[in-house]
């Protein structure tokens, strides 16, 4: 167990609610996790599982109507972010926590030049002069692998390719040397060939800069290749979490297994039926009383429908899962 000082980010019991037609809906439900410097945590789950909302809650950027509920805490580098004023939070966002979003075309401002958009964080957070900000912007663009960065500064986002735009967005996120980088599906909107390049870039930058990184993805393989730890989310809850190698070696929670089995594999014979997960994610406004995955679970039993399983570590300290009837630990896929 590491000491608290080393843990850069600690999320405890965090819940987020959205108003809905019938009362409130908990889109993030009692989530706890922690992250150390230099480590990457992958958040995996289907769309709507609450992984993006969790990231937005960590940054304090919940969409209109959504709010944190309960007694949850987000502690970043020793500070409780929920207790900070918007102004103090702004000194952390962009400066100590960098963010990369899914679609680089919509996340960059279409009417401002690349140079302006990189320089504004440098000038606002670090008080750089415009000449120094320009110099640093060029360095950053070079660091993310953009050729002829001097010329790119005057470009507008629409003049760059998708991959280039995401590199620019990464450069912006890194501009103030953040300690934590949150990347929300950073490659989902990109071509397959570009995806690998961007992931490699992120992995390299994370190592070079010894940053902590949260990587949100719906793709287990991305998690497998990138993350030290992986947390699987389902219907607003973390249902299984372990070091990535351990998780892939011993999947305990049937949902994780189902997610894994849903990936088509190269060595499958042609025309194999994809093992898509049966059923649909539950309606958050009308959750089943027991385990949320119970209606779709192949191993479901009576207890699952009545009692919600807690997220606990049973036989290994670092492997937590929420399941009454897990796959046995030797059952590796």
């Amino acid at each position, binding site marked *: 167990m590491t000491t608290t000082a080393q843990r850069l980010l600690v999320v405890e019991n965090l819940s987020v609610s959205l108003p809905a037609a019938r009362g409130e809906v908990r889109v993030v439900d009692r989530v706890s996790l922690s992250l150390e410097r230099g480590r990457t945590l992958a958040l995996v789950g289907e769309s709507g599982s609450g992984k993006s909302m969790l990231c937005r809650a960590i940054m304090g950027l919940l969409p209109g109507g959504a709010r944190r509920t309960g007694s949850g805490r987000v502690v970043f580098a020793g500070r409780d972010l929920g207790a900070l004023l918007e102004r103090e939070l702004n000194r952390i966002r962009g400066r100590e926590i960098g963010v990369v*979003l899914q679609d680089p075309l919509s*996340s960059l401002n279409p009417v*401002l030049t690349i140079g302006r958009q990189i320089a504004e964080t440098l000038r606002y957070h670090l008080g750089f002069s415009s000449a120094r900000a320009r110099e640093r912007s060029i360095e950053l663009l070079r660091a993310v692998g953009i050729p002829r960065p001097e010329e790119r500064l005057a470009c507008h986002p629409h003049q760059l390719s998708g991959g280039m735009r995401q590199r620019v967005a990464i450069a912006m996120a890194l501009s103030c040397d953040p300690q934590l980088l949150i990347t929300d599906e950073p490659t989902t909107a990109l071509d397959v060939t570009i995806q690998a390049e961007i992931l490699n870039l992120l992995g390299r930058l994370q190592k070079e800069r010894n940053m902590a990184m949260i990587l949100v993805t719906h793709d287990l393989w991305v998690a497998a290749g990138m993350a030290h730890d992986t947390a699987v989310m389902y219907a607003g809850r973390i249902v299984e979490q372990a070091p990535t190698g351990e998780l892939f070696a011993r999947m305990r929670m049937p949902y994780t297994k189902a997610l894994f089995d849903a990936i088509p594999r190269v060595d499958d014979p042609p025309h194999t039926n994809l093992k898509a997960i049966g059923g649909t994610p539950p309606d958050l406004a009308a959750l089943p009383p027991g385990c949320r995955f119970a209606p779709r679970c192949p191993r479901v039993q009576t207890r699952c429908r009545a009692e919600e399983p807690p997220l606990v570590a049973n036989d290994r300290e670092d492997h937590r899962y929420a399941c009454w009837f897990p796959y046995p630990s030797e059952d590796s896929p």
Partner: protein
Amino acid sequence: MGFFWGKFVHLVVVVLAVTAVTFVMLDLLPADVAHEVAGQSATSRDVAAVRQELGLNDSVAARYGRWLAGAARGDLGTSLVTRQPVGEAIASHLPVTLELLLLAQLFALALAIPAGIVSAWRAESPIDRALGSAAFGLISVPSFALAIVLIYFFSLRLKWFPAIGFTPLSEGAWPNIRGMILPAVSVALVEFASLMRVLRGDMIATLREEFILFARAKGLPTWRILLRHALRPSSFTMLTLLGLHIGNLIGGAVIIETIFALPGIGRLLVSSIFSQDYPMVQGCVLIITVGYVAVNFLVDICYGLLDPRVRKEGSVG
């Protein structure tokens, strides 16, 4: 460049069409210009001579052609009533209208931009509702009615501004501007309302964009996000509306000019129509139309300045 030229040709065609239609319409007027010009005591021979001199015996098309040729050389003819060159008369009236126009737009924008931003940022809040109701009320007030109310309170009761009259700039900047404030506000308040509503709507849409979330994730302060990231992409409809307002005001501020006794183009136009001073009417219509079309042209160019994506399409198409 094709985009630019296409617009330009369109512009010229509209100006030609409008002036030609005016020519035909004026030709329909029942009064005999030659009679008017020759005077009360003129004999039929004098009238015939005047008619010959003015070229009134020619067809409409021939006269329009002659007028157009003159206009192309910068000669808009001479007033039938005052014998003053039309160009000169317009040059003395135009600055008043332009000043009114400029001040009114400045006031309108100075109110509409902050109000629109605040309403969008705090959408559905009490302040948004209050601004929205105020705007709705203002849209329903005719500018002349507003002018009467403003004159009553600010000129007659409070005596802050003169009720009517125009002071030329040569007699000092403050007296000049002081006389322009109430007319400009009368126009501006009505325009403010529509500009604000449009800006609010577009801004709410922009604030939902992902690049705003990204800007917030960069830790930028709210005012900077609103002004720098959200305002520009949200100002297109407002700009279009502003162009329409300006275009309509060049000749359409007659009522305000009349109430405040400002010697602008609108009043020149109306008095020329009443006195059947055709060259003057024709000249005013030309200026008003060119102004209207030019403003719309400028708005198109501004799109390109505001949004680089438009610029790209423009240079290709």
